């Protein structure tokens, strides 16, 4: 049961993950696995109504139950004097920002809205007591559909937001775009619904809060992708505790996919309850609660059009979207259908005119926020569906029409019409590789032959781009972010030459302990096994912004590379002093400093480290010890791209879609660990295939969540999916020290369009030009018949 041998694990190698031994033996501790002395349990009573006035709450029976310590409502939180707020962290011009309190005060606005809290000695009692709280509700009408919610007379979620419009946002040049359409030879046009999704990280959210009333310190273990953001928001908006008195710790975290970025009420409630009862308080969501409280994803109603000239060249794109915000504005929700969506409308294409208009809409539903891909899957879906529709209406092959419109490899940096400047790319390279691997030309023959036999095969391309590696802080700040997006790292070389790395990222399955050590092993020439990586504790590492938006390698990894470079620079100065040589005469190779041509007289990094700590003989002006901190603010987003291809067979008699092959050629720049990158692609594809074929959150007309359990919501099972074929092209990012991009979201961004394009291709003999996701047998059969 030993670790990897020395020498393995450098940048670019598929080393096995060092995280795994604890995980495969059940020794790793997630939040709900922790127990503290005197710990009690907290549960939250949630509204059964999408929209209701609260006339009164009678908790007397619950309070009398043996084992119940207290029952609290919003009034108790208000009386305690804490701010009690759950804030939004991204502001758009003229956006309506309704109050969002830790518990509903007098109105519930979605099924799941918190109404009361129980604190009890054990978790069974804490759940029993919920049934003994009687809430006098006055139910009102609710609305769940984001387009219908804007119609006159629709029930209002917040009185201060007429027609339920939270914001009215646009990007691009409307006049120029309309003019392009006026001159178009062909126009492709689609109305689509981008279906609402429920994230379903396998670990439900949880918090264990321990408030020390003597010191005023709060320690909060929680399921988080970004401990420092949670510390900040809990301090500023929810509890009013000084930031330095709050320590947020992410123990092992069981997946997130965005759902553990956001600041929800529940973790703040556990902390507030600990302040009230003077004991550690644990809250753990049931799966049903995660369905009712974890921020959902997508939920767009969109009309899109693509204009072409007579040669099939794209001359204009216009998109109108109604994007659900849900009942309140979640942490980064306003950014998702705007700056992470409208800015991606150019796709991989040289598009001279683009206009995108978005209404952010309140609905009586669970708040919507970033879910794996966050805006970019929605953008890719409408663009890539329109491109296939453009191929259909113009009679040009889908691969050819893409090739004809790609931004050419020599056009970089390429300024789009929607703010982004693409730094690098070779879109045709990825397309060619994918077409060859799938056997595109042969497939068309096979497809034609199969149709003769009544079998309906289809092939779907998705040539995607995404912007990730969030992000240049000044840029996101100018767009409304109430957060920076740089990243921090500390590289600490100990006296014995062993290394501890601290990152402000916070992994939850990505394998950072492995890949970040690989970066440092290569940078310092230190054996991989001599490097430890620590993340996820606001009390230990400098401020960081966490892990989401495929940012950890590009920003966190770059911060680590920068810090390692500073360490080498300092070590070089000390080594030169020890070798009595000029710094510029020194070589640094495999962890050794030596004068050019004299490798036998070397000072190794551990030698230098020891001298740095002893500090008996340091050059003038050099401080003792050997460590460096870096705060890395990226110069630009990073732009992964690629071609994904799905091959399906549609059963003519049942409408069932069989995903026969799925091939991904991704370009994520330089690759730190190919095995881990492939794993990220696999998981991303599975979630995108899930959206396209299986998953959807269903609300009824009264805004009740019908798909409220894993029985009703189809998280893909193993036999729903094929094995995946993956390959890569490598176009290094030109503006970060590692040449890396991001890979966490690529699969989820690319795959829905590939799958739906394949289904529509299969159904082309039936005159079908679109089917909304999820593409169920029922929808397909109806389309065929």
């Amino acid at each position, binding site marked *: *049961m030993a670790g990897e041998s020395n020498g393995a694990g450098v940048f670019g190698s598929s080393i*096995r*993950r060092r*995280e*795994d*031994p*604890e*995980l*495969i*033996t*059940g*020794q*790793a*501790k*997630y939040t*709900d*696995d922790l*127990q503290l002395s005197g710990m009690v349990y907290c549960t939250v009573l949630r509204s059964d109504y999408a929209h209701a006035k609260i006339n009164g709450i009678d908790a007397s029976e619950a309070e009398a139950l043996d084992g119940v310590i207290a029952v609290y409502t919003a009034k108790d939180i208000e009386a305690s004097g804490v701010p009690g707020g759950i804030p939004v962290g991204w502001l758009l011009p003229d956006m309506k920002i309704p109050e969002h309190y830790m518990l509903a005060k007098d109105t519930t606005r979605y099924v799941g809205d918190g109404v009361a809290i129980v604190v009890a000695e054990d*978790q*069974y009692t804490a759940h029993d007591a919920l049934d003994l709280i009687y809430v006098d509700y006055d139910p009102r009408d609710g609305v769940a559909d984001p387009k219908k919610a804007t119609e006159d007379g629709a029930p209002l979620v917040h009185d201060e937001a007429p027609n339920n419009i939270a914001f009215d946002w646009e990007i691009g040049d409307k006049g120029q775009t309309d003019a392009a359409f006026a001159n178009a030879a062909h126009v492709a046009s689609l109305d689509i619904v981008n279906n609402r999704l429920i994230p*379903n*990280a*396998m*670990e*439900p959210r949880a918090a264990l809060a321990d408030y020390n009333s003597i010191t005023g310190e709060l320690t909060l273990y929680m399921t988080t992708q970004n401990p420092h953001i949670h510390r900040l928001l809990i301090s500023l908006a929810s509890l009013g505790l000084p930031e330095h008195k709050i320590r947020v710790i992410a123990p*092992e*975290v*069981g*997946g997130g*996919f965005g759902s553990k970025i956001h600041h929800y009420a529940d973790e703040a409630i556990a902390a507030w309850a600990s302040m009230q009862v003077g004991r550690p308080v644990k809250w753990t969501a*049931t*799966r*049903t609660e995660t369905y009712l409280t974890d921020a959902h994803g997508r939920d767009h109603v969109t009309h899109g059009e693509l204009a072409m000239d007579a040669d099939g060249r794209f001359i204009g794109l216009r998109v109108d979207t109604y994007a659900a915000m849900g009942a309140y504005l979640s942490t980064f929700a306003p950014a998702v259908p705007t700056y992470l969506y409208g800015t991606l409308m150019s796709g991989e294409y040289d598009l001279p005119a683009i206009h995108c208009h978005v209404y952010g809409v309140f609905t009586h539903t669970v708040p919507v926020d970033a879910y794996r891909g966050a805006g970019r899957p929605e953008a890719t879906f409408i663009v890539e569906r329109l491109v296939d529709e453009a191929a259909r209406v113009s009679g040009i092959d889908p691969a050819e029409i893409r090739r004809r419109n790609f931004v050419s490899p020599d056009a970089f940096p390429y300024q789009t019409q929607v703010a982004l400047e693409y730094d690098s790319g070779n879109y045709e390279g990825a397309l060619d590789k994918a077409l060859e691997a799938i056997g595109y030309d042969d497939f068309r023959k096979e497809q034609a032959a199969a149709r003769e036999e009544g079998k309906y095969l289809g092939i779907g391309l998705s040539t995607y781009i995404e912007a990730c590696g969030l992000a240049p802080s000044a840029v996101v700040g100018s767009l409304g972010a109430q957060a920076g997006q740089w990243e921090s790292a500390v590289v600490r070389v100990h006296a014995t030459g062993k290394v501890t790395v601290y990152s402000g990222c916070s992994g*939850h*399955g*990505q*394998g950072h302990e492995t890949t970040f050590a690989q970066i440092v092993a290569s940078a310092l020439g230190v054996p991989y096994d001599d490097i430890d990586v620590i993340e996820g504790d606001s009390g230990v590492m400098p401020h960081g912004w966490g892990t989401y938006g495929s940012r950890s390698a590009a920003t966190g990894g770059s911060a680590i590379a920068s810090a390692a470079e500073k360490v080498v620079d300092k070590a070089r100065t000390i080594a030169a002093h020890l070798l009595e040589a000029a710094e510029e005469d020194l070589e640094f190779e495999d962890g050794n400093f030596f004068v050019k041509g004299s490798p036998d007289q070397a000072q190794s990094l551990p030698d230098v480290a020891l001298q740095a700590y002893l500090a008996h003989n340091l050059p003038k002006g050099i401080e003792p010890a050997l460590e460096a901190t870096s705060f890395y603010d990226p110069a630009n987003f990073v732009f992964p791209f690629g071609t994904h291809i799905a091959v399906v067979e549609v059963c003519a008699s049942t409408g069932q879609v069989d995903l026969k092959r799925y091939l991904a050629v991704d370009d994520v720049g330089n690759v730190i660990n190919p*095995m*881990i990158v*492939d*794993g990220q692609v*696999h*998981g*991303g*594809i*599975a*979630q995108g295939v899930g959206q396209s074929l299986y998953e959807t959150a269903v609300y009824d007309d009264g805004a009740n969540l019908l798909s409220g*359990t*894993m*029985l009703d919501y189809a*998280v*893909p*099972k*193993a*036999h729903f*999916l094929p*094995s*995946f074929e993956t390959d890569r092209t490598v176009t290094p990012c030109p503006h970060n020290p590692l040449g890396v991009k991001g890979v966490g979201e690529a*699969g989820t961004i690319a795959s829905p369009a590939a799958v739906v394009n394949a289904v529509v291709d299969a159904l082309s003999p039936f005159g079908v030009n679109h089917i909304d996701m999820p593409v169920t047998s029922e929808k397909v059969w109806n389309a065929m018949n």
Partner: protein
Amino acid sequence: MGISIELEVNGASVSKEVEPRLLLAHLLREELGLTGTKIGCDTSQCGSCTILLDGQAVKSCTVLAVQADGSEVTTIEGLANGEYHPMQQAFWDNHGLQCGFCTPGMIISCVDLLNSNPQPSEDEIRHGLEGNLCRCTGYHNIVRAVQAAAETMNG
């Protein structure tokens, strides 16, 4: 109130007085400190809580502790015997896990799968795992891990 039960957990004898409604998953996690067994849902869908009960894979969130009276329980903590079980080793070697939350239940189910079908096809592996959900891996490398473990165990 309590009911006395005796069972063997990972080879050790356990005697407890438990509430009749106590779930086996909670007995393992809360009272015996065996938190490797995870609870990921409340409708017996996800399989994170899968353990071996008298050698058979069961979802311990759907078994009352009292029903395990007189039984032998193996959890993920009891699977390794000085060295990793071939299935654990195969999950590590093949990157069959990412966040690790589904992994204990998944590994137990995979062990059970090979116990009943030592040389499964890919299709049989995928259908054999329908009681266990993974949100990270897309199952691709889990399938590879089961194939690798089958090879080791049959070799």
